[in-house]
């Protein structure tokens, strides 16, 4: 492999600043005397910015995912009673955690916002 080929394999990681100090020095030294690899780096930096912005536009995880995660880490949801309409509803949930008392809580959903009515256990993440 020529010097340029070896250096070019490292340029993406030179651009994202994760090379070891020794590797980064070797790349910098090579760049000082090779305009072709400097052009290559400029191209990579532009791609990196563009792709970073593009990935950042990908959709986020759905909001309900956390509820599913917490339901299965706390225990098995025994009942999930969901009464209500699109805008207003009351949901009652009972789940059995790995340890301790069963958790009973009730939430009022109002215009998509959850308002806690009662919860027999304090703490935890909502």
């Amino acid at each position, binding site marked *: 492999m020529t010097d340029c080929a070896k250096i070019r*394999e490292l340029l*993406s*990681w030179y651009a994202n600043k994760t090379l070891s100090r020794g590797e980064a020095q070797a790349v910098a030294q090579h760049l000082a005397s090779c305009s072709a690899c400097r052009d290559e780096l400029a191209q990579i930096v532009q*791609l990196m910015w563009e*792709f970073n912005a593009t990935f950042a536009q990908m*959709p986020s995880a759905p909001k309900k995912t956390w509820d599913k*995660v917490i339901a299965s880490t706390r225990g098995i949801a025994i009942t999930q009673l969901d009464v209500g309409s699109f805008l207003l509803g009351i949901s009652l949930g009972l789940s059995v955690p790995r340890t301790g008392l069963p958790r009973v809580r009730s939430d009022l959903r109002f215009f998509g916002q959850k308002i806690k009515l009662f919860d027999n256990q304090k703490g935890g*993440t909502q």
Partner: protein
Amino acid sequence: MESCDLLDHVARNDERAFGRLYERFADRIFRYALTLLRNRHLAEEVVQETMIAIWKNAESFGGRSQVSTWIFGIARNQAYTLLRREVAGERRSVEKLFLPDPAEEVEREEQVRAAMSALPVGQREVVFLAFYEGLSYGEIARILAVPEGTVKSRMYHAKQKLAGALT
């Protein structure tokens, strides 16, 4: 709090720390899974299964790697487990990787998205992990369980294709 401290608390069944870890990683796992699977429903399952695996196995994180490397490694395993299950069952639908831009579509952005979607998945995930997650080739090699040279050459070929498609 650093992610490794959060993980420490998670290992002691601290739900609040688990919530914060979720906030920090859910979208990143989701996007990585989308990059791999191109299916939102499956990507959501990957987030779920990965978080559950973290809750169950937090104490086994040895601190030998970065937390993100460990988590993306788990997510990747979950993604491929789901993929095998799906392939055995019905054909999954491939979706566009990106939401339509509510603002006016800029032609260049559209080209960038198309170029990314056209890459083989092995190259696409390296680009994601290096350019979005900012990981080193060593960390990416650990996540993919391939030699470092493989990661470097996948990136090199990805860059050639992307530059070719975008000029």
